[in-house]
């Protein structure tokens, strides 16, 4: 037993696995932040959230590879595009189902998921497109290398999460957004234009999806079904942290990423996902309001 532990756990590969999990957790945290914000404020789950990310990845691919725009301006365009998309999504669809049963909201955004996935197939085909950018890697210690694109993704994601935290806690608009998520009815009575706030929140949520798209495009190929490969993981992260609870979602992202990484280290990557989802289901039974729910 000890030998196995020595061989597997105190090995440089295991440290690398943990590190990869940590870096992946950063991107997951960014993804869950946008979804959580929208849920917390508008009380709607965007099942199609990962598909917005997918469209963002296509945007940056076309800007950078087809039109030759440098990476940074492409990223800015990508963030703005997806932010606009988030706003439009809210205005033309979500606004109409706001008062309906939660199930109908879920299904309406599910319809958008189908639509976006297939429109991407229709317009861009099913082949895997790569940004073709390699940032290389740097040496952390004697035998541990870290991929730069993963590292950049982690740093930008962490900065964005911190930025969102300050925006929500310090700015006037942030205060308004927090207030409406705490009490929907009273804020409207006090003369707040809820629709405007919802629109802005949707745009911010979309912008965060766009940012995540830029970071993911550095690491993964884009294809119409890329959304469905990480979408469910993002939902589970949000639910595990408590839907609408930004800090909980942030911590849950790292728990989830590490579970996938560790499962993948001892067996296949699929088993890592299975492990993470099983832990999720068990967590739900023990703490239905999420791991980090405040006692009310």
């Amino acid at each position: 037993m000890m030998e196995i532990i020595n061989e597997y756990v105190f090995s440089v590969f295991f440290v690398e696995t943990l590190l990869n999990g940590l870096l992946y957790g950063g991107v997951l945290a960014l993804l869950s932040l946008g979804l959580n914000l929208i849920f917390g404020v508008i009380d709607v789950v965007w099942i199609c959230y990962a598909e917005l990310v997918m469209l963002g990845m296509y945007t940056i691919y076309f800007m950078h590879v087809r039109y030759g725009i440098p990476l940074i301006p492409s990223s800015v365009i990508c963030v703005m595009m997806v932010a606009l998309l988030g706003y439009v999504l809210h205005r033309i669809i979500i606004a109409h189902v706001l008062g309906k049963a939660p199930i109908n909201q879920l299904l309406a955004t599910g319809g958008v998921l189908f639509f976006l996935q297939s429109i991407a197939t229709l317009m861009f085909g099913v082949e895997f497109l790569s940004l073709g950018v390699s940032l290389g890697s740097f040496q952390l210690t004697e035998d541990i290398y870290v991929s730069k694109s993963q590292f950049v993704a982690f740093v930008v994601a962490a900065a964005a999460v911190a930025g969102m935290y300050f925006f929500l806690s310090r700015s006037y608009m942030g205060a308004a957004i927090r207030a409406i998520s705490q009490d929907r009815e009273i804020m409207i009575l006090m003369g707040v234009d809820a629709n405007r706030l919802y629109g802005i929140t949707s745009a911010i949520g979309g912008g965060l999806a766009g940012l995540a798209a830029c970071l993911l495009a550095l690491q993964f190929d884009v294809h119409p079904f890329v959304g469905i490969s990480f979408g469910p993981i993002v939902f589970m992260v949000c639910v595990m942290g408590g839907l609408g609870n930004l800090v909980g979602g942030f911590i849950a992202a790292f728990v989830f990423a590490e579970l996938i990484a560790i499962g993948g280290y001892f067996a296949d990557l699929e088993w890592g996902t299975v492990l993470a989802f099983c832990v999720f289901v068990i967590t739900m039974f023990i703490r239905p309001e999420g791991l980090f729910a405040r006692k009310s």
Partner: protein
Amino acid sequence: MTRLPLMLLGLAGLIAVPFIGVPPYWLHIMIIILIWSFAYTGWSVMGRFGLVSLGHGAFMGIGAYGTALLWNHAGLTPWVGIPVSMLLAGGFALLIGYPCFKYKIVGHYFALVTLALSVIVGQVIVATRKHTGGSLGYTPEPHGGEGFSIYAFQFPEKTHFYLIALAAWVVGLIIWRMVDKSMSRYALEAISEDEDASAAVGVQVTREKLKITMLSAVMTAFAGAMYCQYQLFVSPDTVAGVGISLQIVFAVVAGGIYTQFGPTVGAIITIILAEVLRINIGELEGLLGFRPFGLDNTIYGIMLVLFIIFLPRGVLGSIQARMKGGAKA
């Protein structure tokens, strides 16, 4: 009961279909529609009470893969393998349902927990690729010379399978009706309105929900097994996983959750739409200038959003509601 003779006449007509020279292609489409209708009906027996499960892809996968694996690896005839797989799916429904209902996981949360089940089953099938073929798919081995084998539940002749699928579909509708007429229906409707209040007046909430969930899971697993035995090929994309779970829910919503034939109408709409577009893809290419892969799902997605906003009862549900309204006026 003036409707009964009409229904029997319709059923007689459907039984006659393979014997009046319907081309094999149309027979194939009808079999596919019947099998999926059965699966959708299976989902709707619980879905109509607000129990929106995104985990039915998992139950379907268990039914299909369970039957095929037991046949190939253990030599167990599907006549035993199908019931065993159905029991297995029921067991999974119990395993996931009991804690869900006991700890009052409802609405969004129930949908997402069941979605996790879809992911788990889909990934396990891919991860155990040594036994299940992974994402490349899996084929139940043939038995006997001609391919026809009652023992192996393999019927290359479309007529045979059409009659089997038709019988299953009718049984599915009868089950739906029985649930509709049962006391459980009132209990479950009360639960979906207000869980605490119905518990207070003596409804056994956990038990009623569990019963309907297990029934639904077992039905869906049977649909998976039938699909497997008919196509003699299954893959995670066609019978298991997240995509199938979503497809099941959305087809039922399109047809109508709250009516007996709603799921069937949903199956007809979605399958015919996909087939028409698939066949005419060449002409559409000439028209549009590119090959419109994914056009069916594009239209389907738009339809779905419009349905939810404007026709939340689905196509058939809305027509029936209008007819009732018209009769009153």
